[in-house]
């Protein structure tokens, strides 16, 4: 007994439903639109939301890039890429420039995105208020009435206790002056890349069954206060492979004594630079 799966795994009706939800998400920037998320052959929490979005918009002419933690070569990125190669037989690439769709977990590439490109984020927890109020019925009301006081109180409490805002990744943003949105667990370093970006950014949460989006050229502001403005993390040393001083760096432990070195998290960017591209 053998079984033939549809192009990009999902059946066309499911894909259509997802695309409709995506259109709604584009129309209400930053608003989490519920959708009938499907079971996928990869586990929840491993990118099922992103995979469903990619499956829904993928066409035969598309070129797909998949990254995980910035890298094209991590096991989960490889696995997802292989999934689409098998089920859709499309072109895959490591080049940010050449990709039409970039599915990502926890990073936005260092190479600036262009008009026409689509970013698909894998989202574990779409609700930015979840750790303040876990009950969904409550957070829905908070969003509807734009009642975001609790979020600002939390940020204020951070400042009162630690002298700074204590969120290092998944740093909340306000989209188009309206909805507070989770940018997914990207480092806050990547937040500014969302603001007025020429690309479309889609966010898919498979387990929580939510889709949201940031349309091109939309204001995305990281939450802060007038006297405590949003600040980015920085490193004291450059990347030890390509020497970049402007990219997000990963720490690598090289021996049992805990010797550390720092290298670019975006492997494609790093490779391009060290091969003398820029």
């Amino acid at each position, binding site marked *: 007994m*053998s079984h033939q799966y549809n192009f990009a795994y999902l059946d066309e009706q499911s894909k259509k439903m997802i695309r409709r939800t995506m259109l709604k998400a584009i129309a209400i920037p930053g608003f989490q639109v519920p959708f009938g998320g499907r079971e996928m052959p990869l586990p929840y929490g491993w990118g099922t939301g992103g995979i469903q979005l990619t499956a829904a918009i993928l066409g035969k002419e598309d070129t797909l890039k998949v990254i995980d933690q910035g890298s094209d070569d991590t*096991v989960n990125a490889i696995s997802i890429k292989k*999934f689409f190669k098998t089920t859709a037989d499309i072109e895959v690439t490591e080049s940010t420039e050449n990709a039409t769709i970039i599915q990502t977990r926890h990073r936005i590439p260092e190479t600036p995105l262009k008009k026409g490109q689509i970013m698909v984020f894998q989202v574990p927890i779409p609700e930015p208020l979840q750790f303040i109020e876990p009950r969904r019925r409550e957070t829905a009301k908070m969003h509807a009435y734009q009642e975001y006081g609790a979020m600002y109180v939390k940020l204020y409490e951070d400042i009162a206790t630690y002298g700074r805002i*204590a969120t290092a990744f998944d740093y909340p943003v306000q989209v188009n002056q309206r909805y507070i949105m989770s940018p997914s667990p990207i480092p806050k370093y990547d937040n500014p890349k969302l603001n007025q970006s020429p690309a479309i950014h889609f966010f898919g949460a498979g387990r929580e069954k939510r889709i949201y989006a940031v349309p091109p050229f939309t204001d995305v502001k990281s939450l802060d206060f007038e006297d405590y403005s949003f600040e980015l993390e920085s490193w004291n040393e450059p990347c030890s492979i390509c020497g970049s001083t402007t990219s997000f760096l990963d*720490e690598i432990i090289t021996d049992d004594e805990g010797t550390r070195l720092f290298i670019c998290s975006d492997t494609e960017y790093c490779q391009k630079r060290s091969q003398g591209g820029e």
Partner: protein
Amino acid sequence: MYVAVKGGEKAVKQSRRLVAKMRRGPETVPPIRTNQIEHQMGLGVDRVMAEGSLYDNKAAATALKQAQGDTMEAIFLVRAFRTTLKRFGTSAPIDTQDMQIIRRISGIYKDIPGGQVLGPTYDYTHRLIDFDSDEKKETPLKNQVPTVDSTEQDISPQQMTRVIDILRQQGLMDTASPTTPHKNVEDLTREPLKLPASRSIRLQNLARGDEGFLLGSAYSLQRGFGLDRHPFLGELRVGYIAVKYTPPELGFEIIIGKIKLTECFMINRFDGSENKPPGFENGYGLVFGQSERKAMSMALLDKSLQNSSNSDSKTKYPAQDQEFILSHSDNVESSGFVQHLKLPHYVDFQSELVFIRNLKKEHDKKKETCLEPSI
């Protein structure tokens, strides 16, 4: 018929005959052998050993066969067997640093000393049912991958530093206060659960607790019902380790066997308090066999229960509540009690009937008097 005034004995006998028949299935299909279960259903066997609290592959495999693949029933069989075994002593504590690793990963560093060892995992497989698997001629594994047979237990003898010790070296985590394991370890299987429970008892409870219950509880923490931020997987390792024991009549240590274990360190950020500097804290999970889902759930719950055992902490959600978690984690207990409702309760229900009829009578009477037009 379920209810019979007499004839219970005959009915039970017939039921046993039927279950034996159902277990065997059509006789045109050859029966499975327990050694097939032991080697080809290894993860199922591991779960039965872990929750059965008995490291015995053969017993677990046999129990699975006898229970028609019903995991909890098999766990129950193993527990009932375990309780008859004599306890002859306490082994020396194991040091997982000496583990012969078959799989070891960290979610917090891209690379670690000793390397990330992916090993056998379903994590990166695509969950597509291979309907042809039955018809496929199996090529001998030897020709596919030149691998060490994990059952041979001759895996890399290399010592691998625990990732958590790297964080300790950097002063980012409490140095372990190795409560030197003493001779008289508390034993949850010999003493009743007392609350509040020590960490050692809590870990024992979680280690034999139901995988599904632990998983659901840990998941609730992650969804904000108990955790206020994302936890990290410091390290997960699976491998074999020797168990050492000193028989009093010998007076020196001998190896009595090797067991497969899954160990997990889960890491949470700690922003510091008056007495404690900022850093990271960890939760711990250790389970028989390869059971990563369970070891990780256990580590998340361990941390959550450590937090809530501080006197000044507030318990707001179920997975922070020691009593809630520890009293409901055991599936032999819960499966028994939920299903005891199948037992006859005629007598109790008869009393309920009498009571409710009287109550109803009074209610009706009151209603009647209310409806009567007052003159």
